[in-house]
């Protein structure tokens, strides 16, 4: 009989209509955004930030420029710090990320051998100006290592364990590596492979 299928379809919508009142938890899947927010997955990635240990002067980044060269849309810009004699230091003087260009792929985090750049969970970053406001400088990028522990506890544990193992191994031989002059030089130790295996 013509019309039976229409009626069946209408019953489905009626049921969904009633469900929103009878059992709102199952019926409605809207989240009232500014008041309520969905929990983010630990691995959620947005824009990158830089990690410091303790105080903001202790930037973990050594300005090796690996992320700068690996970044697919080339949104990272680094100038290493130089001391009075013009020698390159293991610290960035300028570290800019253009959030307008960044495409949140997370490759910088993956290739960084020093565990210093990570993807943030911050997503409410609307700005009025595309050119200036979205060019984020080093000071704004810096966030403490504890912040990372808070947003991604699983990765934090893994990286802490890795770092502990590395420093235990590195300590007897040499306390620090040579500052990498060549920007394209890859990571030197195989353990620094940044592909996470378990999370």
């Amino acid at each position, binding site marked *: *009989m013509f019309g039976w299928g229409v009626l069946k*379809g209408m019953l489905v*919508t009626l049921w*969904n*209509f009633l469900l*929103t009142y009878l059992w709102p938890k199952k019926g*409605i*899947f*809207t989240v009232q955004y500014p008041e309520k927010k969905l929990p983010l997955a630990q691995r959620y990635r947005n824009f990158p930030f830089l990690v410091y240990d303790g105080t903001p002067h202790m930037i973990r980044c050594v300005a090796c420029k690996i992320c700068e060269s690996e970044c697919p849309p080339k949104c990272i810009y680094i100038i290493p710090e130089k001391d009075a004699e013009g020698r390159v230091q293991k610290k960035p003087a300028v570290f800019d990320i253009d959030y307008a260009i960044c495409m949140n792929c997370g490759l910088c985090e993956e290739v960084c051998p020093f565990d210093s750049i990570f993807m943030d969970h911050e997503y409410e970053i609307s700005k009025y100006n595309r050119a200036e406001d979205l060019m984020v400088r080093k000071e704004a990028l810096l966030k403490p290592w504890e912040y990372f522990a808070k947003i991604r506890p699983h990765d934090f544990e893994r990286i802490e364990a890795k770092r502990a193992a590395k420093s235990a191994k590195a300590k007897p031989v040499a306390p620090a590596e040579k500052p990498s002059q060549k920007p394209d030089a890859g990571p030197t130790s195989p353990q620094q492979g940044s592909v996470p295996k378990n999370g």
Partner: protein
Amino acid sequence: MAETIDQIFVLAKDRFLDLLGIVLPDWIILLVRILISIAVLLAVAPVVMMYMTWLERKVLGRIQNRYGPNRVGIFGLLQPIADGIKMLTKEDIVPKNADQVIHFLAPVVIVIAPLLVLAVLPFGRNMIAADLNVGLLFFLGVSTFGVIALFMGSWASRNKYSLLGGMRAFAQMISYEIPMVLSVVPVILVTSSLSTAAIVEAQLGWKWFIFTPWGGFAALVFFLCGVAEVNRTPFDLPEAESEIVAGFHTEYSGMKFALFYMAEFISTFAISGLAVTLFLGGWDGPAFLPSWFWFGLKTFILILIMIWFRGTLPRFRVDQLMGFAWKVFLPFTLANIFIAALWALLPYPKNFIADTIGITVILTLLQIFNRKETPKKRKYLYAN
């Protein structure tokens, strides 16, 4: 007490006129009496329209598992007002090549028809603005007039989509006018009156026409034609947003656009009201609640059904739409006149049997003759 509440609007009007009667002459009272009705209708109609948009958005939202408007005011009740402000403050864009005068006139004209037809709707006992003895004819005649405004808008816009929409609107409205009127004829035949108030009175005491075999189907056909008449899903071809952008109102913005919507919603209300009047006993209902409440409730339910349609059904194609009117509705309504005549002619048990047989025969015939167009069930193969 119940009587007072039932007649509260009528009594209020009379009391007010009595007060005026102390100082004013009779002929002015007569004029004021008319003006009050007009003013009330003109004031109520936009409010009804505003809250129908709210209702539609709310119900559609719930059908689609979301909240619908809920930010402006409690339950989003102030949303229509916010919308209205937005519409009023929006820039009014008129295409450069449009016919300026007609482009401006179309949205103005289009709201006239739905407002006019409200005059003959009996909203409750004694609550009718103008009890014309040709009320039904007036309603059907005037509501057709809206299509001209619609075509004015589409033609004057000089937009190809608008033109297509206007063409569709014309074809659709004229086609659906015929089965719509024919489905009303049995009611006139049985009540032998064209006055809407008289039609309601004929149905008092649960003798609603929808409970008779001919009336049930006539009501269905009338309602579907009404849906087509006011361009709502599944017959919303003139403004099919996925095909011809917005049809006849593609080139309208701001308040003019809102006026098109207002016309649509008020006609929706009016058509539902007429369906209630003709088949659902009008304001008839258990006496513990006032008559205007029953009218409102029934209209509300019909409007809900229309919104429910919109939330569920896909749209017809233009040839199928026409086919539906000419191949299904028209033969059925023609036969239905005969069936209703049988009902009026024969005594009770016989007429019921005769009607049932008649309707079965006509439905079977329709099924047989339209079987070419009826879709089939499909089978699917699987390959490994």
